[in-house]
């Protein structure tokens, strides 16, 4: 049996359509079987509510008198992109204000507007014959704008990697606070309610399909930027009229140490046309797998620590390497449910009819990493290969002489086999002299927990280690912990002096 979209829409119009949320669907399929569920259910509603940095809106402010061709535009001191006609701008959620003390950004302006608040528009121009005005400042409400169209380049990801941190210090990331040594796991996404998890083949989710966007009736524009459904990370570009939106489903947020973002509620109705769709909407948390990625590795390709399902993540704890680690969600499941439930209500009341995609989204497409034409400098390109070191059994006096003779401030300390076991600085030696003098050997005063780098580490990562630990040099070690160089703050200057070795 198959069901046509026309039949479903006719049922929506006469109020007889059977609409359920994606959370209810697996139980119905268990009870009635696939054919039974197909006969019974017309529409499955999905929902998600989480941090979506990729959020923003186009505004048309109307023309002032005398008119201005706005070249730079600020809304509550947050700059919007104005390179689009005279009185239009695009405000992105993550753009931050130039003057505010606390973190305030585009997301806060968008929320303020939707909440009915006043926003200060400021714009400047060089002035032209047709647009003589050079500056303007005015206060606007959302209703004062001709258009306020939210266009989010990539929302509602199919799934999100979960995050943990195997490094020794707390990380503040877009995935929230990650405690050291895998102290917690942070995840995002609504699992069984997640829109794309219910149609991973993009059969009925595509361009032109009506959706719930932050309380408004919006629509899918098409594939989102960085859409990568072939790898399980499909996403959507969506649009909606801000004037219909509600603050409940559009909330500004600040990720500590990362920046401003926006929580957005997105829901997509799925017409139940055949058993293939019954099967895909019967997806459960147990079926949706994701990786827990180690954010302690500051690179694009981070290692996976474990593979888990959304059922595991939602249970409150998961296992990593035999240890139980607690989980936190960044997205709100309660509000995702509210999105799916409200969308269900819209359709039951005949407020929204469904449509099939006018253009399909490629379910096999994969996003590529950036092509980089300039070689990213590595530590080996700028490190100092003439390493002056000392062994741990030497006397402090010998270390002092060596530091003086070679005009260096850092001596890597080696054990009998030549492996790095510590580091001493001129400061350590001076301190040993002014204290009681009972300390005699290098190993008595050396720092044993050495912050180090490797030859192929990007210089940017090494520079961050110097800054975060407030130190001025890093021993460079090979895979066997043998010192092959030293990278000092001074070497970083080589990047700018053109003396870099190729």
């Amino acid at each position, binding site marked *: 049996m198959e069901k046509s979209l026309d039949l479903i829409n006719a049922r929506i119009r006469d109020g007889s359509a059977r609409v359920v949320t994606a959370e209810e669907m697996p139980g119905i399929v268990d009870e009635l079987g696939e054919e039974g569920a197909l006969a019974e259910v017309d529409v499955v509603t999905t929902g998600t509510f989480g941090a979506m940095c990729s959020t923003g809106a186009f505004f048309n402010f109307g023309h002032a008198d005398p008119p201005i061709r706005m070249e730079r535009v600020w809304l509550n001191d947050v700059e919007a992109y104005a390179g689009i006609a005279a009185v239009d701008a695009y405000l992105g959620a993550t753009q931050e204000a130039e003057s505010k003390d606390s973190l305030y950004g585009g997301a806060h302006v968008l929320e303020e507007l939707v909440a009915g608040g006043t926003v200060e528009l400021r714009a400047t121009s060089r002035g032209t014959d047709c647009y003589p005005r050079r500056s303007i400042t005015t206060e606007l409400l959302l209703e004062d704008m001709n258009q306020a169209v939210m266009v989010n380049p990539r929302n509602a990801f199919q799934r999100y990697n979960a995050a943990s941190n195997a490094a020794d210090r707390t990380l503040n990331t877009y995935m929230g606070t990650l405690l050291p040594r895998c102290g*917690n796991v942070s995840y995002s996404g609504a699992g069984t309610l997640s829109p794309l998890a219910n149609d991973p083949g993009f059969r009925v989710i595509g361009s032109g399909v009506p959706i719930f966007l932050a309380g408004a009736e919006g629509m899918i524009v098409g594939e989102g930027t960085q859409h990568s459904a072939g790898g399980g990370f499909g996403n959507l570009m969506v649009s909606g009229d801000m004037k219909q939106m509600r603050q409940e489903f559009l*909330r500004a947020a*600040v990720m500590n140490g990362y920046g401003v973002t926006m*929580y957005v509620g997105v829901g997509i109705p799925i017409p139940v046309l055949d058993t293939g769709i019954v099967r895909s909407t019967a997806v459960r948390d147990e079926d949706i797998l994701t990786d827990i990625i180690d954010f302690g590795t500051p690179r694009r390709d981070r290692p996976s620590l474990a593979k888990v399902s959304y059922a595991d993540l939602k249970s409150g704890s998961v296992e990593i390497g035999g240890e139980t680690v607690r*989980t*936190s969600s*960044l997205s709100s*499941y309660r509000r995702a*449910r509210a999105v799916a439930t409200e969308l269900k209500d819209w359709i039951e009341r005949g407020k929204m009819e469904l449509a099939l995609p006018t253009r399909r989204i490629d379910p096999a497409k994969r996003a590529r990493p950036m092509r980089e034409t300039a070689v990213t400098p590595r530590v080996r390109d700028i490190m100092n290969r003439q390493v002056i070191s000392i062994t741990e059994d030497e006397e402090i006096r010998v270390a002092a002489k060596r530091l003086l003779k070679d005009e260096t401030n850092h001596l890597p300390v080696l054990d009998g086999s030549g492996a790095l076991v510590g580091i001493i600085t001129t400061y350590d030696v001076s301190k040993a002299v002014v204290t009681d003098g009972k300390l005699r050997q290098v190993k008595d005063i050396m720092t044993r927990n050495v912050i180090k780098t490797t030859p192929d580490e990007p210089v940017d990562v090494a520079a961050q280690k110097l800054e975060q630990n407030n130190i001025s040099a890093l021993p460079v070690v090979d895979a066997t912990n043998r010192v092959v160089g030293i990278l000092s703050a001074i070497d970083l200057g080589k990047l700018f002096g053109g003396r870099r070795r190729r």
Partner: protein
Amino acid sequence: MKLLLAFSRKGRADPGREPVIARVVKETGVLINVEKANIDSMAGEMLIDVPNKDADLVRRRLEEMGVTVRVMENAVVRDEEECVDCGACVSVCPQEVFSFDAEWRLVVSAERCVLCGKCIRACPHGALSQQG
């Protein structure tokens, strides 16, 4: 019940120079659990947990010794308007103060809080604060 103690250590006779906790425990026999202590050269602050029935007694004795005592009823406070029930606070809390109920509503067991402040920084919505 949690009590937040504050004492000066400036003068020789200030309570911060004395073993006040040990003295109260010895005199009253009440078991005091020190949950957080931050003591520097000039002043100290300490969060202690005592059985509810003994709280008045402990409080009185500490105040007699010159310690300022504040009862912490809701150490961490949630702003229901701002909170979206996401759960970013759940796993960063060492005391398991936060959890979800069956409806995925955030539940705050403030009595477990030891005022470490991790959740306040981790909350993306600025919904958590310390009792003022």
